[in-house]
């Protein structure tokens, strides 16, 4: 299967599961851009998150496996206890090094790595969360010419994470969940 020249990376913490489900719910199974989702969760928690997403989405839901390519029509969940990195050939690498921002998986790590590979074709979306993880990665995406989107803090269950991004990225787009969904649909190439 051909890989995509674009990539969507999405991150969330507290309130992020609900927000990401709402964003992704109506995206078609044929959606043309691979999506990587990094959600903070409890350490050593097993894969039930995958079932929750698989039940509600039209897209294929898979946990990231190392060396597998990021393909269109898929949402890839970062596994508990590993950072997710991207290789130049659009395959995944996993990394169990130090936590970043008290998190592994860390949103910053994946956002940064995605921008290194996909550059201006990276779309970063930061959703609800009580952490400061994600904003420096989102800033890095923006600096590489990619698109930085933060969930509207007024709507987010916890505003800390998207607000941190908005405060540090002057060109950050602020959207509510409905608007993010529309935006993602507009990127879809039939």
């Amino acid at each position, binding site marked *: 299967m051909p890989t995509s020249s674009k990539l969507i990376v999405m991150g969330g913490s507290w309130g992020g599961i609900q927000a990401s489900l709402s964003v992704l719910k109506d995206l078609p199974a044929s959606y043309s851009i691979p999506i990587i989702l990094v959600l903070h969760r409890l350490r*050593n928690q*097993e894969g039930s998150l995958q079932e929750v997403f698989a039940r509600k989405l039209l897209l294929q839901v898979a946990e990231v496996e190392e060396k597998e390519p990021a393909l269109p029509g898929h949402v890839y969940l970062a596994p508990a206890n590993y950072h997710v990195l991207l290789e130049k050939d659009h395959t995944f690498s996993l*990394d169990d090094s130090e936590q970043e921002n008290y998190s592994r998986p860390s949103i910053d790590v994946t956002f940064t790595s995605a921008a*290194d590979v996909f*550059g201006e074709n990276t779309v970063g979306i930061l959703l609800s969360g009580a952490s400061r993880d994600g904003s420096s990665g989102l800033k890095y995406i923006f600096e590489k010419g990619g698109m930085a989107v933060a969930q509207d803090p007024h709507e987010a269950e916890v505003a800390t994470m998207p607000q941190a991004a908005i405060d540090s990225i002057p060109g950050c787009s602020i959207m509510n969940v409905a608007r993010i969904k529309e935006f993602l649909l507009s990127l879809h190439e039939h």
Partner: protein
Amino acid sequence: MKPRADELFEQEVEALIRDIHTTYGYDFSGYARASVYRRVKRFLGHKHLPGMDALRERLFSDSFFFENFLQEITVNVTEMFRDPTFFLSLRQHVLPILSTYPFIKIWDAGCSTGEELFSLAILLEEEGLLGRTKIYATDINQKVLKQAKEGIFPASSMAAYAAAYYAAGGKRDFAGYYTSNYGSVKFASSLVRNVVFYPHNLATDTSFNEFHLVVCRNVLIYFNRQLQERVFNLFDESLVSLGYLALGKKETLAMSGISPRYDIMDKSNRIYRKVS
């Protein structure tokens, strides 16, 4: 178009990998690049080095500095009883089979600072097997081997390790395995009385013994497919018939040429058995 700075950095890392091989003999050519780039950038930041030229100058003029670099480039983050269900599975399904051998040999490949090694030793002790088990603990890095031998870990980690120990089927008082001193704890040296520590590089060294169990968790994720395949063959050569191979939770034998000779014993904990 990708900005040129990235490409330049990547070329510089490739040149560095070649020169490290020539100068120090360590071969990183088979390491997955995304992680190498990230580790190098991180190291530059921590050492306040302005760029790759400064890094090269230090690395090739100061072997002590290189040792330090080696430790940072190879990930040495580890913990005791990581993935407690893995250790529980080992205790319930693998050790009873190993106990049928008069003498047991285990290879802990990539033992890092020893947290996994001490976890294995505690398991073997509680199952009454430690006295007739010899563990070979190897790592690419001499410095972490020294740490592993000492068995000194931060006291602040003990609460989490104790919880993981009980989740892994721990039968005793976890605190009974160590003595505390100034923010550190030291695990009983009797746990590693039958352990031999020595440097072994999975990327370049050969098989050196035959084992009933090879444990190598979260090491292969840092290697490309080609190097992974080399290591799988190395493990295959190093396992007795009906021996066990334990990988990390996100590592798999599935894509390997040796996989037809292996049964998967515990899928979620990635425990394989050599059946032919």
